[in-house]
């Protein structure tokens, strides 16, 4: 009695009850499809964050005032009352650290922008003229402000596309005047469109002005909480991070065991944090979907148990005409594995289809994961064996005389 004959017997038995087989498989189909779709969404989000981060520039560094919080990377700068980062420090970084190519301080002010009877609340960032190079902004019309504007604290402003859309419907804003806190600013340029960031925030809802102007005219402070620094190349990022730290410690006269009163972070730290969040999300989504796969497996066991009872006479006949009980056991086990594997295969196709359809329908990025596919196949086979074993053993243990008499 070879395995091939038993597989044939199992297939014939399943084919005799196609509707029931299909319904039994449904649980596994949905489970596997859900796992694959969920993991794809998670992986897609992860990949898109990675892409955005590398788009921002892998050679980007953040220097901020105050010590880094223990145990986590903070993505915001916050106003934690420290005033340890001065303009002189930043200029020294640019002047003395060879692996740094560009630097821009960043001071943030959230204000109302007014043009005629239109107004719009946005983030006005005070930066240096080097910012477009560091953050890879393009200029759509006009130009970015100059070093001279920064030095003189000129009231000039560069607007993001969203701001332009809301304040100047269709008009060219370059040369126009915008009022911020009752002070007129001259629009010198319009930024190119960047779209949404991975968190769904509108990156174009922004305006840039010289940091000196924002500090003096809008915030009334000389503090700098954070600065963007560009290393000469992606490979030089780590060197730059170390050199900046050394320079700042030296300038702040920190002795050997004193902690840093500033923080230097690079994009890979941030990428790592983002990745961690995403992988937690992926696991969470995947596990929830995994539960439905488990429920599908229990459905198979349920049907197989019912099937053993319902087919008691059939089992009796098989045993009477010469089937060994091991053959009956294998038959039921194979039926269960065939159900779960066929369900798994259909589920994989459905899951891949869903992963391809989601970006089109919901606009979420997805990435079909080979690991999830292999995992689903293995899991559904395991479900078949695990949940099929008990009913199969029950069938094999039947006594042919009793089974034949069963009504």
């Amino acid at each position, binding site marked *: 009695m070879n395995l091939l004959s038993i597989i044939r017997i199992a297939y014939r038995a399943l084919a*005799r009850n196609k509707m029931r087989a299909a319904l039994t498989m449904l649980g596994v189909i949905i489970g596997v499809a859900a796992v694959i779709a969920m993991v794809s969404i998670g992986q897609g989000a992860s990949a898109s964050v990675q892409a955005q981060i590398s788009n921002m520039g892998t050679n980007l560094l953040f220097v901020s005032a105050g010590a880094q919080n223990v145990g986590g990377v903070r993505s915001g700068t916050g106003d934690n009352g420290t005033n340890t980062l001065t303009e002189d420090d930043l200029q020294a970084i640019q002047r003395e650290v060879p692996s740094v190519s560009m630097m821009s301080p960043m001071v943030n002010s959230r204000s109302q922008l007014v043009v005629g009877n239109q107004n719009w609340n946005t983030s006005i960032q005070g930066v240096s003229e080097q910012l477009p190079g560091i953050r890879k902004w393009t200029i759509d019309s006009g130009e970015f402000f100059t070093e001279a504007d920064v030095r003189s604290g000129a009231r000039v402003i560069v607007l993001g596309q969203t701001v332009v859309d809301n304040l100047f419907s269709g008009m060219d804003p370059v040369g126009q005047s915008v009022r911020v806190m009752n002070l007129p600013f001259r629009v010198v340029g319009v930024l190119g469109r960047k779209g949404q960031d991975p968190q769904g925030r509108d990156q174009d809802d922004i305006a840039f002005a010289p940091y000196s102007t924002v500090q003096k005219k809008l915030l009334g402070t000389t503090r700098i909480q954070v600065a963007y620094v560009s290393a000469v190349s992606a490979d030089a990022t780590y060197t730059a991070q170390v050199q900046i730290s050394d320079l700042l410690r030296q300038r702040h006269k920190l002795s050997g065991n004193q902690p840093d009163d500033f923080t230097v972070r690079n994009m890979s730290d941030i990428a790592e944090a983002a990745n961690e969040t995403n992988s937690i999300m992926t696991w969470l989504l995947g596990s929830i979907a995994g539960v439905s796969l488990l429920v599908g497996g229990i459905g198979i066991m349920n049907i197989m148990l019912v099937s053993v009872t319902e087919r008691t*006479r059939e089992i009796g*006949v098989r*045993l009477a*005409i010469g*089937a060994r*009980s091991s053959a009956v056991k294998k038959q039921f086990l194979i039926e269960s594995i065939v159900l779960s594997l066929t369900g798994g295969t259909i589920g994989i196709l459905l899951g891949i289809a869903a992963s391809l359809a989601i970006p089109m329908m919901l606009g979420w990025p997805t990435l079909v994961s080979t690991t999830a596919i292999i995992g689903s196949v293995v899991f559904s086979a395991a479900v078949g064996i695990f949940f099929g074993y008990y009913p199969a053993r029950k069938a094999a243990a039947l006594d042919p005389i009793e089974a034949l008499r069963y009504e």
Partner: protein
Amino acid sequence: MAALLERQIPTPGAQIWHDQNLIEQPEAPAVIELDHIHKTYTMGDVEVHALRGVSLTIRQGEFVAIMGASGSGKSTTMNIIGCLDRPTRGTYVLDGQDVSQLSKDERADIRSQKIGFVFQGFNLLSRTSALENVELPMLYAGIDSQERQKRSKEALAAVGLVGREQNHPNQLSGGQQQRVAIARSLVNRPALILADEPTGNLDSRTSIEVMEIFQRLNREQGITLVLVTHEPDIAEYASRVVVFKDGRIKKDYQVEHQRDASEELKNLPPVEEDEEEE
């Protein structure tokens, strides 16, 4: 119908017993030798002696009817002869092999190779064609696909079901279903066919038709048949009757005037062949 049944199926090596007396000659080898078989069941605290020393020899080519009231031990004997059950004491030699103390798997193999079963309730697999039903014992015996097809078609032809190969049991009448079951019992070329109340679910005309097939298989192919029945008129189609009572053989005799099913069928009024179909 009559035309179909009269088809001669030549089988190489088949012994044709035209004369009843030949069966009595000692050279016919014994297929079944039961020697002082005892069977005791324990039901709760009570011991039930189902068989109390049964000795019975059935030779090749015999057609034996086993009779008896319920509880007489005929079903237990049937189960032991069919290797579905083991005797508590005594020896059973089937086709020259002592099978009284074989394991479960060994008995399954014996059933596969040496015994064909026909049941009262037909016990065909539903939603499965007649051909596939007949193939089933060969699947378990590990016979290759071509041979399976060939033998199944032959067996279905032998029971007069040419052209019904693809019908499912629910598309066949009771008599036709029982004929499929007979075909199924034939395909592994067993030493013995055991029929347990094969006409219990059939009307009298269909019963005669089924008995006609058994008689023909017995006469033309020399197949040894053991038939369990409680109907005396059905037992008269057999050549020998064994009557059980209280776990013992009460009577064992040759039938003097064996009924001839094919003769009786000729004398019955003809029926429309298609009448019994769905």
